[in-house]
Each structure stands twice: as C-alpha cells, then as structure tokens.
C-alpha cells in the first residue's frame, strides 16, 4: 500500500488490512464519511471558490478597478516574479526569519514545556503566565515592541544602559543588520507559548510508566528525556513545527507594525510583498501569482519536515 508522505503525519498506525478489521471496513467507511463531511463542507465551501479564483487570476494581468481589462498572460506573472531580484531577496529574508524564529520557538518551547512538566514550585503560575504573551493581540504586541525598541524612549535602551552594556542610546530599528533580529525577538516572545503549551500537553498525555520503568532501569534524567520522551513527542513536535513554520513564513502583521518593511526593505517579507502588490499597487494578478508561489514554498517545507522527521510511531 503506497502511503503518501504527507499523510504520514496523521496516519501513524496506518490503518492496515488486518483480518480483524476487514470485516468492519465497509461500515467503517460510511461512518468515516459522516464524521468527515461537516468539516469538508465548511472548509471547501468557504475556501474552494476563492482559491480557484485566485489561482485563475494569477494567469492574468489584472489591475484593480471596475471594468478593467484583464489580459491573459499565462505564466507571465510567475516569470516576472522569478526574474525579479527583489523576489528572491525577499524569499531569502523570509527564510531567515522563519528558520531563526521557529528554531528559537521550538527550543524555548521544549525547554519550558519540560520545565513545567517537572512540576517545580509555582509551575501552575508559570503555565498561566505563559499564555499572556500569546493572548496579547498581535497589534498590541507589535506596538509594544516598537516602543521598547524606540531609540530615545525605549525600555531596551534604558535596560542596556543601566546594565552598563551601552554608552549611548542606540537607534536599533535603523540598523540594517539589527532590524530583522529584533522583529524575530518580538515574534518569538509572542508565539513561543504556543509551542510550549502544545508540547506540555503532549508530555502530559505520555504514559508515566515508561518513564518510571526507565528510571528503575537506571537511566538518568537526560537519557530519559532524550531517548524516551522526545521520540514519543515526535507527532506533537511535528505538528508544532509545521504549524509554526507555515505561519512564520507568511508573517505580515508584526512586520507592518514594527518596521513597515524598513529599513531599506530589510524586513520585507514575502506576504508583505504580496499584500503590497494586491492592495496598494493594484496588481491583483501578480499578488495572486505570489500567493501560489508562497504555497509552493510552504508545502515543500512541510514535505521536507515530514520526510526527515517522521518515523513510524514507536508503539508501547
């Protein structure tokens, strides 16, 4: 039975054709459809036409407006983008953002999840507080960090000055090399709780006996973590990783607020570029083409993760 790689993330114990289950297979299928149809109706009902519309639009030169002439350009929009240096610079920049922010979020999230799971004093308080950065709306988060990074009044400068690490206030957001890392920091602060909480929930559902058995066998804390818990967490890690990567690659709001893609395009991300094309610049066709190019990238990344990280689940 050929299993498509993308499915592997979901179908751990791939439904197999063992005899015992075969007899119930037909009835099962009917139940399956009944379970799946409501979701399908909602998802496809809402997104199918817009996705097709956008896909078709990407093959046209389509200026915004009423009764505007739409010229069919086949792959024209795609080729134009692929030939544009700005496009590739932006993809590179977005990759940089994605890799660093997701990387930090995963590591921090895992550390914090494990920390909470070990139930130190006040662990409930910690988990409660963890939600706050995530719950603060993105706009507020952006505005807050923008102010923290403010050259003349910001908390960052004040803190670093008081710690004696800098002599003058630094105009952080004007430094081409610092702008993106600072946006990354703001995003990591905001989204790291998501990873931490998913992993913590996953840790909470892990069977305790395995751990205890290993402890009895003489494994120390680190070995228990690395060899037993981590592999069992794989599905949850994979979900968090793919979800965050896909979202990080499409980051827009926070960049818009903190730097508006500056200085000199150093924080211009690919969804921002798509937005610029579709709305202020009125080039719907180009915007649509960019959307699909983005999708190609995100699907590829998801596939790569699954290929590299997926292992058939170690069953108990």
């Amino acid at each position: 039975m050929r299993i498509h790689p993308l499915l592997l993330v979901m179908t751990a114990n791939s439904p197999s054709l063992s005899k015992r289950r075969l007899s119930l297979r037909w009835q099962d299928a009917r139940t399956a459809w009944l379970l799946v149809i409501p979701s399908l109706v909602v998802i496809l009902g809402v997104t199918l036409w817009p996705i097709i519309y956008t896909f078709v639009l990407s093959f046209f030169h389509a200026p915004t407006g009423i009764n505007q002439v739409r010229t069919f350009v086949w792959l024209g929009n795609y080729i134009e983008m692929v030939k544009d240096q700005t496009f590739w610079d932006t993809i590179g920049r977005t990759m940089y953002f994605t890799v660093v922010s997701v990387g930090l979020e995963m590591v921090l999230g895992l550390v914090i999840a494990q920390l909470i799971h070990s139930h130190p004093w006040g662990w409930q308080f910690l988990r409660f507080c963890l939600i706050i950065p995530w719950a603060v709306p993105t706009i507020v988060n952006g505005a807050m960090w923008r102010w923290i990074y403010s050259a003349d009044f910001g908390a960052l400068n004040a803190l670093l000055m008081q710690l004696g690490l800098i002599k003058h206030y630094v105009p952080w957001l004007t430094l081409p090399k610092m702008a993106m890392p600072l946006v990354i920091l703001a995003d990591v602060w905001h989204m790291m709780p998501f990873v931490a909480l998913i992993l913590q929930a996953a840790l909470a559902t892990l069977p305790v006996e395995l751990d205890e058995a290993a402890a009895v066998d003489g494994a120390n804390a680190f070995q228990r973590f690395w060899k037993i818990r981590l592999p069992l967490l794989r599905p949850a890690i994979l979900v968090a990783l793919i979800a965050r990567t896909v979202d990080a690659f499409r980051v827009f709001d926070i960049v818009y607020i903190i730097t508006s893609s500056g200085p000199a395009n150093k924080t211009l991300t690919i969804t921002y570029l798509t937005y610029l094309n579709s709305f202020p610049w009125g080039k719907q066709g180009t915007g649509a083409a960019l959307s699909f190019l983005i999708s190609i990238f995100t699907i590829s990344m998801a596939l790569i993760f699954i290929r590299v990280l997926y292992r058939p689940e170690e069953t108990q």
Partner: protein
Amino acid sequence: MRTLNKIALLAVAFLLAIGVVGCQPKAGPVTIHILTMDQAGLKPAEIDQIARDFEALNPDIKVVMEYVGYDYVHDKIVTGMAAKPPAYDAAMIDVIWPDEFIKAGYLLDVTSRVTPDMKANMFPASWNGVTRDGKIYGMPWLMDVKYFMYNKDILQQAGITAPPKTWEELVDQAKIIKQKGLVEFPIIWSWNQKEGVVCDFTVLLFGNGGAFLDANGKPIFNNEQGVQILTWMKQTVDEGLSNPSSVSSDEGAVETDFLAGKSAFAVNWLFQYSDSNDATKSQIVGKVAFAPMPVFAAGAAAGIQGSSVDGSSSFAIMATTPYPDQTWKFLSYLASNEVQIKYSAEMLPAWQNDFQGDALANLLAATPSNPVTVPAFLAQFPYANERPTVAYYNEASAALQLAIQEALTGVKTPKQALDEAAAKWIELAGK
C-alpha cells in the same frame, strides 16, 4: 447514530440560516454609505451629528458613515468597490489617490455639480488635490501641509534670535545648539519606510528648485537638485545634527521626540502644534512656534519663496453610486460654509472668506491655538506642492522610499539609489 443525525440537522439549519439572513429585502428611504477616515479633522461624533442634522433637513435620505483609520481606508475602498453592488457611495480620499482611482474607474466626475460659489470661494489650492485634466473629482475637506516648527526656548538658550530661513542656516543653528549641549540631535524627521519620507523629500526637493517629473512626465528627481538634497539629508545624520532614529521614525515619532524637548526643530503636520499645548502629551507647552518652511539657498536664488507638501483629504463620489444627486447633496452640506464655521474649532474651514474680515476675527477666537495656527496656515498653504499625479503612484512612491532609505543607511550612494528609483518609475509608466 443519534449524534450524527443531530450534527447533520445542525449543519442544514446552519446553511438555511445563512440563506434566510442573507435574503432580507430592503425598504425605506434612500441610504447612502460613506467611508471616511477616523480622526481626520472632525471627530466621528461630530460628523455623525452633521449627518443627523442633514437627515432632519432631508427626510428621504439616510446617511450611514463608516470610520476607519487612515492606514486602512485605501484597502477598504478597493475591496468595497470590488463587491457587487459596491459598498460605498462616497469616500474620503488622500491627495495621492485620485489618479489611481480615476484609472480604476472609481471616481465620479463632478465638475458640473460644483457651483461657481464653491469654485471661487474655496481655496484654489484645495481644488488642486481633486482636479485632473480640468475635471473635478471631489469636494475638498481637510487641508493640511507640513509646517516647520521650532522650540523657542532652545533657540533662546542658544542665543539664536530668529529661526532659519534656509536649510543651510538651519544646519548652522543646529551646530550651535549641539555644541552648547542643549540637545543631542537638534533636528528630527519622519524618514521611515512609509509615505512620510516622500513628503519630507517633496518639501526639500521643491525647496531646492527640483521637481519629480519634467514637462513630459519623465522622472527628474534624480538630477543634480535631487541628489543634492538626498546627500544633504544623509550628511545631517552623519554630522549628528539630524537624529539617526529619523530613519525609523514616522510623524508620530517625530512628535513624541519634539514634544519631549529632545529636538529643537521638527517638520510635521498641523496636529503636532495642537498636541504641543496638551500637557498630557507635551513637556514643552507654550514653547512651540511656527516659521515659514526654509528653502535651500540655491532654490531661493532660483526664485523659490516657499515649499511644503500637500497632505489634504477630500470627499469623492464613487462612479458606481445609484444616488449621485443625494450623495452630492450631503457632501455639499458637509463642506458648506455654515457647517464648517460651526466646527471651525476642530478643523480649519476650506472657505477663503472665513479668513477675511469679521469671519477671521471669529475664527481666531474659536480656539486658543487659532491665533497662531491660522496665520501659519495662510502663510504656508499656498506653497503646498503636490506629489506626482500618476496612476502608479503607490508603487512609484515605494521605490522612492526604498531609494531614500538605501541612501540613508549607506547601502547605496544617493545618485545610485535615485537613478534606480527613476528607472523603476520609467518602467512603471510604460506598463
């Protein structure tokens, strides 16, 4: 199975509900929908009141106002107009949008509706923003230009008796202020990667005798005058006269810096002055003064007497509206002399005769700041320059913003950056 039946039933009910909700017929008087900017001149409560007053006078017209922040008006217009039927009958538009919207077929030509009275008595400069090829596409509403403001106290402490008349003088004065240790960075600008930097660039460019496009519509902002001012901009940052954070500052950041007493000179829109006298926002209450916007010595030699940038907003009727007469009626009422005088404490009227004789006296008495702002407005507004009136302006502006930022951060030389931007403009014009 029962659960599944419930679910199926719920889904069907759901879809039915959407259908029913969507199919309610509309009845009653004519309703017009108008999109406007939040915090543009009058407060929403005040505009709502005007709408109610209008409805009382015209019982067969109902006015529905919608308020959004400036950053989102353009997007709402574009999406609103894509719907069938379009969502709006009229909208407030920024001075840089008419060309794009005319090309997109959004705006209604109202030349024949504008009365001679309006034409003659509203500020001529205010019609610039809405007139293209001799046709008028909107009703002037909020006039605004960038002003040159300075901190009287700091200048006094530095022993400077008069504000600068040229940008070169400004640099000299800034050096004195810096040497005396009064502030670290005497000048603050809004040069971040948004439209604001192009506004500042406009002020400086025209003040140097430069221009964006020549008579044939070809970009010339990368000529000698243009490169000079961009070089000058970078130089003032390098010399520590312009605050380096200008590169990431927008007009709001300029205001916070200036009102905290951290700079001596700031170029900004009118709002900065009224805020300067608000003790919850300003640490320099009563210390801010206007001066005519400086020009460059070369510009003065070429006969340029003043230079600023037009940042006005106007109301435009959408070409697709089924109710152009009613909409125009409301807009005329909104912009009428009587209404504008009533709210002149909030927003300067667009009618010239309000600035003459008795009316002027009343206007000056309307708010504590008017005695200062009204003369400043009268002095500066005539020199308001328009940014290029091309349909591809947004994308062109983005290219110019990038170029200026690249020059300021040292990624490219001013000439290189401006040349590339000019090349992009030519490319855009060709499409």
